[in-house]
């Protein structure tokens, strides 16, 4: 089976994919400039935060994917590890972009409406980052935010985000380094080293991703909180990353690379996508049901905003795309083994989790537009395309920087090549 595969296959990033990704980046840059010029700065910032977060999360989850495979000593995935490794390699860049967006959003201010008052406040995180919010007697003083100021203050906030992303990047870099050294030297020494740091990474990642989601997304609406929010975001990040990994592999296969990946590998990835879509729904619903059942105004206000006529269709569409679609489309074995069906489902879930983040971010930043269908306009689409292009360009460049598209001395490689379910 493995005899006609070349394990020295090197990925060249050229041709249409490169052109299209550069076109995407150009569209993104033009859209961002147009957004600032045409006085849509707030909406541009919200979209930049959304896509910056999405991009970073996918790269983070690339490290998570690798670490999970090492810790569970999974054999089936050994031959496709280069794809999440390429994501992990892109993480430092994604992190820098997200941090720049956050710092810019925190430092640039404009007059906006906070609880009925017009205040000059930062574009992002206006509720807790506005000047004087913790100073008693100041007109911006807010008792609730002042009570959270020990956690939600600029230095600690930035230190957390930089610290988390820095730590994840270092672990990603180490895992990549060990895997590449393993290719040169063989043996199980680097495998066991990867195992050890993966275990450490998973502990750190498990405790810090909820905080990361609390900081970057939940603190946009700093009066409200949900302890489920971190896991809910983790599920969204993990499902979208699995979809992107699967789609990347399907695309690479169609370009003639990674021919050792069979229907069986795609089936396994499809199972993960299916299972974690259900998990996503579980966390989404766990968060929603408690708020609905308790019906306490300060909690329910979060869903009330998403229940406004402008957001309600998107709120429901989110459930349809991210729960009903995978449930009905990829439950059956045959559809998980059909490359075409799986590729379409991946695309649907990638857009679906964009919508998921959209419903998390927009009501608390930009607020409702005139009509519900005006919520998603050229700005949203342009910036999505821009980051999609950037993602393809950077991850594929990272993939082409590996000597081969397979970790050829991975101890479980043989098991992966014969993976059958």
């Amino acid at each position, binding site marked *: 089976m493995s005899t006609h595969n070349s394990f020295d296959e090197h990925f060249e990033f050229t041709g249409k994919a490169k052109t299209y990704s550069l076109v995407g980046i150009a569209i993104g840059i033009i859209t961002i400039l147009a957004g600032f010029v045409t006085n849509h700065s707030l909406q541009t910032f919200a979209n930049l935060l959304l896509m910056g977060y999405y991009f970073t999360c996918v790269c983070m989850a690339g490290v998570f994917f690798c670490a999970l495979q090492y810790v569970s000593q999974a054999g089936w995935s050994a031959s496709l590890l280069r794809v999440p490794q390429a994501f992990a390699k892109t993480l430092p860049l994604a992190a820098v972009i997200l941090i720049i967006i956050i710092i810019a959003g925190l430092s640039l201010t404009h007059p906006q409406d906070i609880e009925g008052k017009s205040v000059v406040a930062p574009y992002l995180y206006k509720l807790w980052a506005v000047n004087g919010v913790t100073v008693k007697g100041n007109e911006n003083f807010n008792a609730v935010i002042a009570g959270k100021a020990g956690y939600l203050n600029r230095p600690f906030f930035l230190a957390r985000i930089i610290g988390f992303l820095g730590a994840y990047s270092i672990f990603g870099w180490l895992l990549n380094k060990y895997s590449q050294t393993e290719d040169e030297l063989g043996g199980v020494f680097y495998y066991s080293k990867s195992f050890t740091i993966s275990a450490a990474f998973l502990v750190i990642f498990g405790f810090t991703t909820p905080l990361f989601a609390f900081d970057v997304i939940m603190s946009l609406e700093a009066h409200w909180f949900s302890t489920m929010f971190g896991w809910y975001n983790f599920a969204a990040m993990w499902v979208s990353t699995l979809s992107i990994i699967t789609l990347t592999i399907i695309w690479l296969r169609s370009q003639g690379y990674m021919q050792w990946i069979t229907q069986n590998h795609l089936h396994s990835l499809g199972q993960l996508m299916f299972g974690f879509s259900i998990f996503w729904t579980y966390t989404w*619903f766990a968060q929603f049901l408690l708020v*609905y*059942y308790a*019906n306490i105004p300060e909690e329910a206000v979060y869903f009330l905003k998403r229940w406004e006529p402008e957001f309600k269709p998107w709120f429901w569409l989110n459930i349809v795309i991210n729960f009903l679609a995978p449930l009905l489309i990829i439950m059956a074995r045959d559809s998980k083994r059909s490359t075409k069906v799986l590729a379409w489902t991946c695309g649907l879930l990638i857009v679906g989790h964009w919508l998921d983040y959209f419903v998390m971010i927009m009501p608390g930043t930009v607020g409702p537009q005139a009509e519900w269908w005006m919520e998603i306009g050229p700005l949203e689409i342009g910036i999505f395309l821009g980051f999609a292009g950037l993602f393809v360009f950077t991850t594929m460049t990272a993939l082409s920087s590996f000597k081969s598209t397979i970790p050829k001395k991975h101890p479980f490689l043989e098991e992966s090549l*014969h993976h059958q379910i």
Partner: protein
Amino acid sequence: MSSTKYILGVFDDPDDLMHGIDKLQKNSVSIYDVYSPCPIHGIDAKLGIKDSRLGYAAFMFGCLGGSIMFSMVYYMLTHDWPINIGGKNFFPIPNFVPVTFEWTVLWTAFGMTFTFFFATHLFPGRAPRVMDLRATNDKFILAIDARINGAHDDITNLLKEAGAVEVKHNERKYVSYE
């Protein structure tokens, strides 16, 4: 007419067994079944065994369980005896979701288990029917229906050539009955 009902080839090694299957199939000997203590990759495709339909049964049981529970909660809490719980309306769908979900899972699990028992004639308290008890331990057993395949000595030789450590001509199908 020989009184042999089944010919069993006993193998030590699954690779030899796979080799034996190839040999028999090349000689147009139909194989009744193979018993193995562990899964062997690719054997179902080789023997032409269809995919299990257990998943469809599981799906149906899940739908059934979910519908039964949802109708039951609806009948109790909305139709028959509406109660004001926390100021919710009398048909609060989100509140019905957890219990519906649980019953879907429960019925899927039980339905699937009992379908499996039914289909394989296995259920607690029943002695399993086994052609050779060592198939549950360390031997791989290839069974051939002797009544529809002639030339028993040739089959024996084929199995021996393929590496069978023992070939049995059994006059009854199972060694264990309930």
